[in-house]
């Protein structure tokens, strides 16, 4: 019962670690997902193939395996970075595949004629995508992107297994100190709830603000 108040700083440290992982990995996932979605609808065949392979590989690899590959594999090729950065890379790349597909489904909701009209006016592929198609696709991808980022927040727990400071990992310390495992996990769960409910709230707001009016 007193595990939270006794070890508040440990909890806060873990909480902040999870928040950091979530925020940075989300940003990476959004940027990469956006890029890959553009690739997948590009007029150039090799870009489409690259996007498709990116999604196929990352979406179909178990996240834990991906963590192993990045954290243990990359240093073998001479790339040595802090484990936290590796964790963000793994999480961000993994989630970008899902973001890409959510964006692409959004792009597919925009009638084909919108893009044709833009192209017939002489707009380039990039201009068409950025000023005509994506602003309309954006409205319909808010809910799925929200779900994907919530999944990312929870997936960040895997980083704890690779000695990155994050919320779930705090249980090990507390368990060794002899605290009740039940209460330890209750407070950890509450920490995750705070993060995921915040993401929900942000996306609910965005949906109200920009979502498709029906």
């Amino acid at each position, binding site marked *: 019962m007193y595990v939270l108040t006794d070890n508040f700083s440990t909890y806060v440290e873990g909480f902040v670690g999870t928040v950091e992982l979530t925020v940075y990995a989300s940003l990476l996932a959004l940027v990469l997902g956006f890029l890959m979605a553009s690739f997948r609808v590009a*007029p*150039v065949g090799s870009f489409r193939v690259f996007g498709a392979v990116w999604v196929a590989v990352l979406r179909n690899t178990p996240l834990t395996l991906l963590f192993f590959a990045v954290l243990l594999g990359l240093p073998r090729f001479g790339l040595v970075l802090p484990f936290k950065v590796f964790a963000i890379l793994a999480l961000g790349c993994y989630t970008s595949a899902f973001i890409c597909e959510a964006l692409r489904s959004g792009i597919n909701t925009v*009638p084909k*004629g*919108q893009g*044709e*009209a*833009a*192209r*017939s*006016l*002489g*707009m*380039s592929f990039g*201009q068409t995508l950025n*000023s*005509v198609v994506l*602003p*309309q696709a954006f409205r319909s991808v808010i809910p799925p992107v929200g779900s994907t980022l919530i999944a990312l927040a929870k997936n960040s727990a895997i980083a704890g297994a690779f000695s990155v400071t994050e919320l779930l990992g705090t249980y090990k310390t507390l368990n060794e100190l002899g605290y009740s495992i039940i209460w330890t996990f209750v407070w950890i769960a509450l920490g995750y709830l705070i993060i995921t409910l915040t993401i929900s709230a942000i996306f609910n707001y965005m949906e109200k603000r920009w979502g498709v009016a029906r």
Partner: protein
Amino acid sequence: MAVDPLIELRDVNKYYGELHVLQDINLTVGRGEVVVVIGPSGSGKSTLCRTINRLETIESGHITLDGQALPAEGKALAKLRAEVGMVFQSFNLFAHKTVRQNVSLAQIKVRGRKKDESDKRSGELLERVGLAAHAEKFPAQLSGGQQQRVAIARALAMDPKVMLFDEPTSALDPEMINEVLEVMQQLARDGMTMVVVTHEMGFARSAANRVVFMADGRIVEDRTPEDFFTNPESDRAKDFLSKILKH
């Protein structure tokens, strides 16, 4: 034949899988000419119209615009498309932008005009199609006929050399067809080069220099409207006209 050819199609062929939708199409459109393309559904007339700015690719043949061969994908194609205005059956106004923004967008992005300069030009064009009062509305707030007139203004904003109309009145209520046709008549009188795919025989008679009749992916007749409507040569055209002119 036209003296000063602006659009030339030579031996153009297109397939949709097994279906041979355009078969050895040869067509020349002269500068300032209004060519109306008519024919039964599935005859390839919309496809023909869309190949001219490469919204549809072709399998063989040559298309030249103002002496220039139609480029493949990329910057050169975008540049050329800016010279070719296109009006669609389903209007395709940008749903998330106001009427004025619809007309201004490509002026800013493609022509590199300043925003206030573009908006001024958009205002003039909207005035010309009789919609200046609706500039701040969104497309969904307009009737079909109004949306199509905005689409014409949007295409004109690029100062195109030629305008393509792909069944511009087919999605409109009967009472809105005329307001669109009037704008098109005016354009024709002003000397705009136009290729119009339509079922409006009245427009073909009054505004066209030539009528191209298509059936089954081929150009069957290519004559003046007078000749075509009063004295069609082919059985296919006679059959078509007898069906549509009966009522």
